[in-house]
């Protein structure tokens, strides 16, 4: 090997080493660049997926609301009208029966049937009236028309009033309606449904006798707080995926569409508090809504 020419060897080693070092540096730079690029692409893809999920959720919620409106309209227009007509017919029948008592007796020779017929008729009347009330209640529950026309505060007040009729518990509502600007129908409806869900949860699971609803404007955010004095729950357990029930997940879904957030606290030894926050939108045009109670809305992609 002494036959090696040192100059040639030196040159060969230098060139080969330089080439190898350049390749090594290129490999390092390439890994840095390519990895960053792939991460950026992955992030973009995740963002697209997220916005697509949000859009799907929004569409699903919109469809749900449309379906509620359709059912409410059918109940109001068809069943409601038919029940009103039935009530009218029964009223007329009663009048006919009372006015022409002799004719009534001619129907049956047995006079003891008269009070029984009267009783059956008034029972039918009261049943029809009760059914009309129920249909109205269901219709109102399905579509909060007050929300569309008078806003969130009025809708919550109406909801509490209705609660007072059917449940034996104290529901308080604290709000300065002057502070709360009108929001888009989507946001107001979402907040209303969330409030409904939280109150229903408190009634169903908390075993409470007092519920306090707070609605206020806090640092550019609308804050809705529902506090009960029931048995309470572990707020940390709620954070664990899979622990939350369907209602709470529904709240999360609605909030994700309007960029809101929810926190659960334990205000004291007893009870639970849910705090919902959503960013305030620019004030909505206070132009009065059309008075049609069941507007049909189209689903926007």
């Amino acid at each position: 090997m002494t036959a090696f020419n040192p100059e040639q060897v030196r040159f060969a080693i230098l060139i080969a080493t330089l080439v190898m070092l350049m390749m090594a540096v290129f490999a390092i730079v390439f890994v840095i660049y390519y990895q960053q690029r792939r991460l950026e692409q992955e992030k973009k893809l995740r963002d697209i997926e997220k916005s697509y999920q949000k859009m799907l959720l929004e569409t699903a919620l919109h469809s749900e609301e449309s379906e509620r409106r359709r059912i409410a309209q059918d109940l109001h227009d068809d069943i409601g009208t038919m029940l009103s007509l039935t009530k009218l017919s029964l009223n007329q029948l009663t009048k006919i029966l009372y006015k022409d008592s002799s004719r009534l007796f001619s129907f049956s020779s047995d006079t003891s049937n008269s009070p029984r017929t009267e009783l059956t008729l008034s029972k039918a009347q009261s049943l029809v009236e009760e059914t009309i009330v129920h249909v109205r209640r269901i219709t109102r529950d399905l579509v909060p028309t007050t929300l569309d026309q008078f806003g969130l505060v009025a809708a919550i007040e109406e909801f509490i009033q209705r609660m007072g009729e059917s449940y034996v518990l104290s529901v308080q509502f604290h709000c300065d309606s002057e502070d709360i600007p009108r929001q888009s129908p989507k946001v107001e409806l979402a907040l209303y449904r969330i409030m409904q869900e939280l109150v229903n949860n408190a009634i169903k699971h908390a075993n409470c006798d007092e519920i306090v609803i707070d609605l206020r404007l806090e640092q550019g955010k609308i804050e809705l707080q529902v506090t009960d004095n029931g048995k309470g729950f572990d707020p940390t357990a709620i954070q664990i995926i899979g622990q939350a029930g369907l209602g709470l997940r529904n709240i999360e879904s609605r909030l994700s569409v309007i960029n809101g957030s929810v926190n659960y606290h334990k205000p004291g030894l007893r009870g639970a508090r849910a705090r919902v926050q959503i960013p305030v939108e620019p004030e909505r045009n206070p132009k009065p809504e059309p008075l049609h109670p069941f507007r049909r809305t189209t689903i926007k992609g």
Partner: protein
Amino acid sequence: MAYLSYIERYPLASFAVFFLIVPLGLVWVRYRHLGKAFGLLLTFLALDLAVGIWMLHLAAHRSNNLLLLNIFVPFRYVLFSGMFYFNFRSPRIKRIILYTMIAFGPFALLDIYASNLNLADLHNHLVGRYSQVVESALIILWVLLYFYEIINSLKVSNILTYPFFWVCAGLLIFYSGNIFYFPFWYYINKWENNLRLGWVEDVPYIVEIISLSLFSIGIWLTRPHHDSIQS
């Protein structure tokens, strides 16, 4: 006096040995946050410093120190590939690394024997002809495969703050800079050597200093939140 004279004659070679104190000092600072792979790197740095000083001592007293280098090579490979063994996620590659770790020791010993037919003659002892080349090729392969795994898995969010990336970069620079140089060591590092390459003989030391600097960056980045692959 002999040491000073040697350092004066070979400043870069001596500096490369003493530069090991930098990553070792950083290891001292970050000792609590070191994982298994960095534990092996620490072992390598400590062993390299000990071997380096011993070789310097022998060289300063004009004794052949190549036997130490020959013995160090299989240990070096086992320590470096062990780092990859702990960092790779693919069980198949891990298994292959393990087999090469087992096979490389006997191969290096065989290479020493083949390169030095008279092992008793320590004065004319020569460096192994193939073991360092094979070691370089294998480590470069592990580094490139590891880079491929990082890109594919996307588990590392910021590669510039991921400690093992810098160790890989150091290894790639070290072995790429030496892979064409190692075959000539057999012919250059002879007691009676007629082949002198001049300043090109300093290239391995420059490359070693660069790679040790990159190791130092990796060790410095070994903080608690950067210890996991998700860093």
